[in-house]
């Protein structure tokens, strides 16, 4: 589905369009939420809220433009809001325990500790999601599981040469997708 058509249908609340937008960007939203919120169930809540809030704001977005930066902005804001909400609750609970209840509205709340990495999380996750399954598996084993090419070959039971060629292809694609990070002002 073309992006413009997708966004126009998403704006109307078309279920297929909602599911398609979710399929394309839920990973990126999840990455932002996970980096910003330590609690997994809270991150899952952030993912849902992001797409619902995106739908509410969809009539103000240009459907001819890439929706990724727009969705990232919403995801980041939702993560901040949820973090602040939980921060207030924690502080409120502490205050009540301490017998010194204070007004939540007057409280200064902190920002998520990993928010500065949210943009990287978003970009890296979307780039990884664009890889094929076999490429994803190798990149994951190489970086996340810290396996060598030989160990990956042994685990996948494929020649090490195949691992190398897939790894090269995957990293070439990642480089193309992420090389611009140097120019981004977000990080």
């Amino acid at each position: 589905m073309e992006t413009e058509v997708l966004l126009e249908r998403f704006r109307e609340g078309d279920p297929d369009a909602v599911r398609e937008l979710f399929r394309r960007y839920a990973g990126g939203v999840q990455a932002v939420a996970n980096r910003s919120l330590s609690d997994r169930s809270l991150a899952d809540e952030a993912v849902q809220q992001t797409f619902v809030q995106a739908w509410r704001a969809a009539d103000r977005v240009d459907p001819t433009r890439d929706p990724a930066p727009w969705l990232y902005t919403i995801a980041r804001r939702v993560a901040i809001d949820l973090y602040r909400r939980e921060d207030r609750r924690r502080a409120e609970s502490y205050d009540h325990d301490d017998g010194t209840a204070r007004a939540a509205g007057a409280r200064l709340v902190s920002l998520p500790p990993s928010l500065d990495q949210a943009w990287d999380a978003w970009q890296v996750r979307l780039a990884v999601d664009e890889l094929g399954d076999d490429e994803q598996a190798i990149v994951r084993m190489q970086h996340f599981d810290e396996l060598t090419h030989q160990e990956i070959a042994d685990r996948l039971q494929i020649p090490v040469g195949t691992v190398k060629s897939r790894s090269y292809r995957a990293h070439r694609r990642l480089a193309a997708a992420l090389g611009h990070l140097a120019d981004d002002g977000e990080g």
Partner: protein
Amino acid sequence: VDIDDFIVSALGDDGSEGASPMPSGEAAALAPELERIREGLTWDATWDEAPEAADAVVAAIQAEQHQSTAPASAAGASTPAVGRARRAWRMPALGAAAAAAVVVLVLLVAGGRTTSQVTVDLAGTERAAGASGEAELADADGGWRVDLRHELPAAPADAFYEAWVEGPSGYTSIGTFRGGEAVVLWSGVDLRVQQVLVITLEPDDGDPAVSTAAMLRGTIDLDP
């Protein structure tokens, strides 16, 4: 060193085949960014499965569409309903059918008489975007018990929350509270003839009239 080749080589190096080419010149300036990419590939966030929540999002949107097409109240017309997303503790795997059923009417037969019970989904307004709540209304003891669960933060020291039902004769207060996720309220007016449940933030100024600061609202759908 070609920047692109350097990126590929640096990212693709698995530590088993010698060092990556030494960066120089413009490529060296990219080293911090390469490190960011490398680091990103080691995060759980990069590899965690996204939640299977597409149907829940569809359901939440449909529920909100349903609510927005309901008759607008005089006070609510300028306060668009928002905040349909629900908390995990309430419904971890929000199914399409479950969420689409915004209001569930249950008829109970107790002690030879029929009682009514209804669940009202409350959506955050623009003043409380992202907040939500739920109220269970039950016909009991000559009135209505309202079990409210909400996500509002504690009220500021100079204000409090007030729950209202809106019907043909205007707004009727059914109780006040300051915080707490679960609140029990009682209504003496018959909720069968009320249309909207609203939670407002009221300044502690002695004025008993409803303020314009609606925080949560939801449609009551009980058969008369």
